């Protein structure tokens, strides 16, 4: 009786073993798959002074965050106040070369007042909207007494060495948010902006200040 039970148990195990062999059957593979991911997204904007570890982008440089705020300023001679003769502004920016390759893109900011503005928008894919370069200014520049000058009194001329047509169009501030450029996907852009005060009105004495904030926005 005991012997018979053992035999039965052994058979059961054998049957189980066969079943497991069937379960581990692996079908033939006729090819292998390489999974890939798309390239990364990246965005860069430099207005005036920038920071770069290494020399330039095209030689492997890596940009850093530069919090410096450059100025564009002018002192209007009293004899010229409100004359309508535009007054060229000078800048604290000393940037002449493109961070892309070091090319001398702007001309002597100390004498021309040119402020370098450049960047790029990198994104995989062919479809989708462009990035937007915009600038926001308050309605007016103000002095310590609360006197104002419309920000629209400041205009700029865009240029760039070897650029037949400036990338960022010339224009004037509007005293609010305004679009400067639609930045096509996967392109580099840069311009040198020389500011001028239009000087069309008499204003009280004083130092009038205001800040223009440039923003590059992705869709």
């Amino acid at each position, binding site marked *: 009786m005991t012997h018979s039970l053992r035999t039965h148990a052994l058979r059961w195990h054998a049957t189980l073993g066969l079943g497991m062999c069937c379960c581990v059957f692996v079908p*033939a*593979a006729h*090819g*292998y798959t*390489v*999974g890939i991911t*798309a390239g990364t997204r990246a965005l860069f904007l430099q207005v005036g002074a920038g920071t770069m570890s290494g020399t330039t982008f095209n030689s492997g440089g890596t940009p850093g965050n530069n919090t410096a705020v450059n100025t564009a300023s002018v002192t209007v001679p009293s004899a010229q106040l409100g004359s309508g003769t535009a007054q060229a502004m000078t800048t604290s920016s000393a940037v002449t070369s493109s961070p892309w390759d070091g090319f001398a893109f702007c001309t002597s900011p100390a004498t021309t007042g040119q402020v370098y503005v450049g960047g790029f928008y990198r994104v*995989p*894919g*062919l479809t989708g909207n462009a990035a937007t370069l915009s600038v926001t200014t308050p309605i007016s520049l103000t002095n310590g007494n609360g006197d104002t000058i419309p920000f629209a009194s400041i205009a700029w001329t865009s240029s760039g060495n070897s650029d037949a047509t400036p990338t960022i169009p010339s224009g004037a501030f509007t005293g609010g948010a305004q679009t400067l450029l639609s930045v096509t996907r996967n392109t580099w852009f840069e311009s040198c902006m020389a500011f001028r005060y239009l000087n069309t009105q008499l204003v009280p004495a004083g130092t009038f200040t205001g800040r223009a904030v440039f923003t590059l926005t992705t869709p």
Partner: protein
Amino acid sequence: MKAGRLAAPTACLLLALAAWPAAAATFRVDDTGTYLSQPMTPMRWRQLVPGRAGDNTVEGRVNVALRLNLSAWVNRPARIYMGLAPTEGEQMLATWRTQGRLLPGTVRGGSRTLVFEGVVREPFLQENIVLDLMADGRSVERAQSLQFFFEIEVTP
């Protein structure tokens, strides 16, 4: 005389056909046991910054340990091809280096390239290849699966 002139090219043609009969049969090769060094290969911009020249190439690299089951064709002359199924958008270009058991080469999506020609000597062909992938990054918008495969051509 005219018949003699025609005889030479005809003979050449016949010889060529004899070297590789047109009726060669093609089979997909079982590559069970092939594995990759990484499950996902990130494609990186050759130049992250799109400069004035606008280089939009993305590149990726993966090591592949191949194991081709050729047991059905041992001692038979054969040609083996590595193929890449059609890819989304811009054609992917795959280039590989080998350790000598297979030929190095390049293949585009939707085509195949010869990697072996000769008599199959072993039931399993094992080879490690370094696979470099390249494409226009503007066309590689999302993660994809690239389907590589092997085909063998043998005479009946």
